[in-house]
């Protein structure tokens, strides 16, 4: 005999309120119209913008391609209308999923229009071209660091521990990374030591929050503050008197034969440092591990419902320790990678990248793949904020620098799509 239980209330999947989706559609429309009118019509119909594709550093130059000159106004009107079209599509169909992805596309189109506008011929600056490859290479270095950071966050938060200390792990990794790279001249060794330091900081976070059930956010913030001050002090005591321990640490590029010769794509993806390739391997590994393996199922169970995991014999505390330490190690390597993209350690030069990585983690919905997309977007916006001065744009660049945070607030508040952290994220677990 089979017993049939009928659902008493209709099963409705969690949904984004229609009003919010509508709101984001309207925001897209506004951005699109702004792009078309200000960046397009506003730049005058005689203005030209040129795009170049050959990287500035020609050590491993790809096959050269020519310059593309566009009519600024019309290009941006087209870009603006494309954004408007995306907005209209969202408004007309009110899709349940993919709203954030669409918003990501809108952001990229907007940045592109902004660049064309900034570099127009009769613009405020003498520079009348955009080196697209240089922009992408520059942002990729930032995006890489953000990916390391948000992957670290994925590892920790999927197991239910919030790692606010990513910024501190960056700093720690960068400091020891510079020291090891300067003395041993070996970036592999530097990465390992960076991972050890990051992992040790992870252990401190895990110990305080798992053993003593301290507030994870507070422990994290304390770690960041401590690392910031400690590294400044040590910098003064060690690196200032002995600059030889903190110099010449630009990681060499390891071009992949042939692939690196492809214009634009080659220099951006296949003529990178070892850290970049390591990042890609890590993304694939974490993604595979979390969603395809037994290990990942257990980690996610611990992050969602630790009591349920414990009831089938999974050691919740053990899983959390392991993940927080591994996450810390990944962030530590990220710190070394950042140092190796700058050539040396400087106090405070991570300037909040660890927090932007956390934002990328949230924007990417606690998924490695999502974190990559968010990191690219945020990396681009941070890069542009830092570099648009050269175009003498009449907009404070700090406004662009706000982008990752504004987006994160919009995402967390549910304005764009709906994010749901692991259910037990940040909650202490106590065996009863």
């Amino acid at each position, binding site marked *: 005999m089979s017993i049939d239980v009928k659902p008493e209330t209709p099963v409705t999947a969690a949904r984004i309120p229609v009003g919010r989706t509508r709101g984001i559609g309207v925001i897209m429309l506004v951005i699109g119209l702004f792009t078309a009118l200000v960046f397009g019509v506003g730049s005058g119909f005689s203005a030209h913008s040129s795009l170049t594709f050959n990287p500035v550093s020609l050590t491993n130059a790809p096959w050269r391609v020519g310059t593309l000159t566009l009519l600024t106004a019309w290009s941006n009107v087209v870009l603006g209308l494309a954004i408007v079209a995306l907005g209209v599509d969202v408004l007309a169909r009110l899709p349940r999923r993919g709203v954030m992805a669409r918003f990501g596309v809108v952001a990229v189109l907007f940045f592109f229009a902004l660049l064309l506008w900034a570099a127009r011929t009769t613009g405020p600056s003498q520079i009348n071209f955009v080196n697209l490859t240089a922009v992408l290479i520059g942002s990729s270095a930032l995006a890489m660091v953000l990916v390391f950071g948000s992957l670290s966050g994925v590892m920790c938060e999927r197991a239910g521990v919030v790692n606010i200390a990513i910024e501190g792990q960056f700093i720690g990794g960068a400091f020891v990374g510079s020291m090891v790279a300067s003395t041993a001249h070996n970036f592999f060794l530097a990465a390992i030591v960076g991972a050890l330091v990051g992992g040790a900081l992870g252990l401190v976070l895990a110990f305080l929050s798992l053993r003593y059930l301290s507030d994870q956010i507070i422990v994290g913030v304390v770690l960041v503050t401590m690392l910031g001050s400690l590294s400044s002090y040590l910098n003064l005591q060690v690196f200032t008197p002995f600059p030889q321990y903190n110099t010449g640490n630009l990681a060499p590029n390891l071009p992949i034969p042939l692939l690196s010769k492809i214009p634009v794509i080659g220099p951006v993806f296949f003529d990178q440092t070892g850290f970049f390739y390591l990042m890609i391997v890590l993304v694939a590994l974490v993604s595979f591990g979390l969603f395809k393996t037994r290990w990942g199922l257990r980690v996610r*169970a611990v992050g969602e419902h630790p009591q349920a995991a414990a009831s089938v014999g999974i050691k919740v505390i053990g899983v959390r320790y392991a993940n927080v330490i591994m996450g810390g190690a990944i962030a530590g390597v990220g710190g070394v990678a950042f140092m190796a993209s700058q050539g040396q350690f400087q106090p405070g030069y991570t300037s909040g990248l660890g927090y932007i990585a956390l934002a990328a983690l949230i924007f990417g919905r606690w998924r490695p793949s999502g974190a990559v997309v968010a990191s690219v977007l945020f990396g681009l916006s941070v890069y542009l904020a830092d570099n648009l001065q050269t175009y003498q744009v009449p907009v404070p660049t700090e406004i662009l620098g706000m982008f990752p945070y504004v987006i994160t607030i919009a995402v967390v508040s549910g304005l764009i799509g709906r994010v749901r952290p692991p259910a037990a994220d940040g909650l202490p677990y106590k065996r009863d």
Partner: protein
Amino acid sequence: MRLELRGITKRFGTFTANHRIDLTVEPGQIHCLLGENGAGKSTLMNVIFGLLQPDEGEVLIDGVTTRFSNSGEAVRRGIGMVHQHFMLVPVFSVAENVVLGFEPTKSFDRLDHQRAREEIRSVSQAFNLEVDPDAIVEELPVGLQQRVEILKALSHDAELLILDEPTAVLTPQEIDALMAIMRSLAASGKSILFITHKLKEVKAIADVITVIRQGEVVGTAQASDSEAELASMMVGRDVNLTVTKASVTPGDEVLAITDLVVRDDRGLAAVNGVSLTVRAGEIVALAGVQGNGQTELVEAIAGMRHVESGTITVKGVDITNHTPRQVLDAGVGHVPEDRQLHGLVLSMSVADNLVLNTPRRAPFARHGSRNLAAVNENAEALVTRFDIRTTSTQALVSSLSGGNQQKVIVARELSRPLSLFVASQPTRGLDVGSIEYVHRQIVSQRDDGLGVLIVSSELDEVLALGDRIAVMHAGQISGVVDPSTSRETIGLLMTGAHVESADA
């Protein structure tokens, strides 16, 4: 499996939760463990399941002394537990939940979803427990979620199944389904230990009944024993299970709800055109399966939820979309459904909780500063009058038992002049003694001329208390009937059927 407990004693500090408990569950037997909340049932289960270690005594499985240092060992040894709060990961699929901890894998530690699905199908078929292995658990109704829990235990080859208060969250239909599952499992040779405080269920299903009280076995009973006998054994004194009420002629309307529409958190119309009146000196009991808009209706009355359209008046005064304070000032007393979330501030004392609704009013406050003497005096008086069992009025309200917490709320709400008293699930999770007490209070208030609106998903309670019974289904009132109406008719109304001539 034959499970035997011999002289199990478990102490927490000076408190003895279990004292020399002997219990034997035979294969193929449904053994009911009956006891009030706080009698030590959960402690005993945790001892069996390896979550706690007994201080004395031993657990024997098939005659062999066994000791589990964690629940994983108990599961491997064939003990399955269906927890009151499901141990399921809501965002996982059924298959992922069932195999968690015992996952079939392929190379590189990859999960073998195919084998997991097959495993579930074979267990499902063997025990007639159909569930889609790929369904996401949180999208399943509660009854099916519980089935997943049972499936999980069975797939780990459980020979003994412990069900901890399994019916607390189920609809009447789901309870029937669960009973059928339990019977068929027992018939296939599984041992079942069924923990509950609900007498009806015990009588319906038990082969053997063990009653525990204050951590000790007070005796065994038969399913044929009367509910009154079982109740007095469980509570330790005679309990009056029926509510005695004198007939009262209702007075003027105190609550009038007209065409009310209220949306739930998802933006759906949870209350969809409800009209209802409550008169002075009558109890209107709102029946219905949970999730049919009762919660939202009460929240709207209490000023905790926005009213989309329609009106609510109390004694002719419109209180639609007023703030909770304005509603309180209009003379409405409210016992909320979730007493720990909306009824109490757990980290405050009993005395403070007793004045939560009138903190700024004389005599409890004067010129913006609190008058603690008056607060304490009020607390002493109410603790005595409402028989609240607490070590002191200054004790944290969180240290009280569920029944006494509820008494604090009832005492607070009834300690000022009211026109209307609204109580949502007033006895949920309470022991028999407290239920009796709360019911008596409600009836005596009604006798004093108060209009009372009770919301309950317990049909027994609705029938015992209501002078009129309104049944709610899918956001609408499907009928208002007399308490003499048969259970079957009310059950039909609960499914939305409009019964002819049901209106009283």
